[in-house]
Every structure is written in C-alpha cells, then in structure tokens.
C-alpha cells in the first residue's frame, strides 16, 4: 500500500536523522535487536523506564543543587545514574552532557553544575520528544498493516 511504504520511508528517514544528529547511538540499535516475538515491546518498556528514571533524577538534581550547602557527592551520584541509564538506551547527547556534569561536580563548580542541569534537561526533553514521535510512527505502520523497517 502506498500509505504503508510512505510511512516506512518516513520512519527510515527519521531514524537516520536521529543517528546523524547523535540523539541516538548504536546502543539503541542493540536494544532493537533484542525485541522479538517473545519480547515484542522490549524497546518501549526499557525507554519508558528511562523516562520515569530521568524525571526522578532531574527532580533530585534540582533539589540537591538548591541546598544552601550543596553535597556534590550526592549530585555526582545522581548524574552517574543518569549517565548509566542514558547510555543504556543510546541517548548519546544526554550521556555526553552527564560526562561534563560529573567534571563540574568533581570541581565543586556550582555554576557549571547549574548550567549542565539546564543542558541535560534540555537534551532529555529533546530525545524524549523524538523517541515518542518514533514510537508513534511505528504504531502507525503496524496499524496500517505494515512491518517496521529494521535499521542496520
């Protein structure tokens, strides 16, 4: 059907752009390889976990950095978790900001940390929006009777 192949082309183009612009990296492809008949919603499940985890971490980070006397070890521990979860789903830009964020924690640089918090929140919102759009496209393809193209 013309509609299905158009959707599939859209999917391929969109996914390619996400990799080219480094919103996603190979780890996301690896997650997709783990999705099969016995685990058909694996990617959505892991990514949803990432969304939940990230919202909590962003709140925790905001609270920790608002304290009169900032506990940088605590801040670093949250950023470390964020780095771990973002790299587990291939959210490359988020991971990259976390690396810089950890450096500022080590230096106990409050300004640097606050800037990174804004940046990581921004990158997280971007990747969340894009992944939600990607999943919507997948659903549209499936509902139109097509199969989701496998990206290599």
């Amino acid at each position, binding site marked *: 059907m013309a509609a299905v192949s158009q959707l599939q082309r859209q999917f391929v183009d969109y996914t390619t752009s996400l990799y080219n612009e480094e919103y996603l990296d*190979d*780890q996301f492809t*690896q*997650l997709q*390889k*783990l999705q*099969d008949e016995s*685990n058909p919603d*694996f990617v959505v*499940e*892991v990514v949803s*976990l*990432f969304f939940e*985890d990230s919202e909590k971490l962003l709140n925790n980070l905001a609270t920790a950095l608002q304290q009169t006397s900032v506990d940088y070890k605590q801040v670093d*521990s949250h950023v*470390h*978790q964020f780095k*771990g*979860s973002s*790299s*587990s*789903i*291939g959210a490359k830009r988020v991971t990259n900001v976390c690396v810089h964020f950890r450096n500022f924690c080590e230096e106990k640089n409050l300004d640097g940390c606050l800037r990174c918090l804004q940046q990581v929140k921004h990158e997280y919102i971007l990747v969340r929006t894009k992944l939600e759009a990607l999943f919507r496209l997948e659903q549209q393809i499936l509902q139109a009777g097509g199969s989701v193209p496998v990206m290599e």
Partner: protein
Amino acid sequence: MDGNIWIESEGVGKGSTAIFYVKLGFPARLNEFQLPHLRLQSKPGQTGFPGLKVLVIDDNGVSRTATKGLLVHIGCDVTTVSSGEECLRVITKDHKAVFMDVSLPGAESYNLARRVHGKFPKRHEKPLIVALTGNTDKSAKENLLRVGMDAVVVKPVSVEKMRIALSELLEYRKDVHGA
C-alpha cells in the same frame, strides 16, 4: 597446581622415589575481554545458551533491564538483583555466571567477588564472575581481574560481544574447573 605427589620405596635402604604430577598451562594471554586463556579459541563459539542460569547485579534499573534483555535473548535464565547484599541472599550453586555492573557504590563490587567466591568453596560450584564496566582504562580492567573477576566486558555490550564472551568463558571454565 592441581597435581599429585607421592613417594614410592621398595624398603629400607633401597632408596625412595618421589613422583610429581602437575598440570601446567600455556602462559596467560588476555584477549579482548581480559580473560586469561589456556588455549587459543579454535572452534566457533556457541550462539545460544539455552537455560544457562545467570545472575545480573546492577543498581541502575534501566541498565539492569537492558542487560537482562540481552541475556534472555541469547537463551539465559536470568535473575536480577540491585545490590551486593541481595546477590548474596539470592545466589545459588546453580547460577553459572554472575554479571556484575561495577559502578555499584564504593568498593562493593570488589568485595562482592571475594564474598561470592567465599560462599562457594567447592571449585565446580563457583560461578564465573564477569565485570561489566564503562571504563576502558587498562589498569582499571587489571584491577578488576586482580580482585577476583573472571572476565571484564566493556560496555556498551552488543549481542555478538556477549555471545562471544559467554562462549569463551564457558570454555575457560571447562579448562580450569573441569565443569
């Protein structure tokens, strides 16, 4: 050295013979996974590990779910825990391998390898302990091996990398533990 020593004698004044049998290996060669090898891998590795019972320790929920998904995909029977304490409560001699994310807080991962080994004094009951780390530092990897990890795998881990690592580990286990 896994061998035997005994003394034979035909009697007083007739001398004695001491006999030693020892098992010697080739010098350790560390491959991509920092796994000491006793022989070169010459046959293709396993592609599936049906029902292989393994344990995953990771305090990060997203990372733990991703690692579990990967191991389930290659056929393993996976238990997951989020702390060293939970690991020691849950682990049994049926677990053939433990995948430990070594960003566990503090020195937990280092002590854990020792405590897991301590829980299974019998050689053939000891699970293989694999450290999963994002750190590509050579000295960090060597430290992990020194504290009792059987292998170090650098994240991110692809399906292929995990298949090869597990395949080589099980071969190594057969060489060293005979099981």
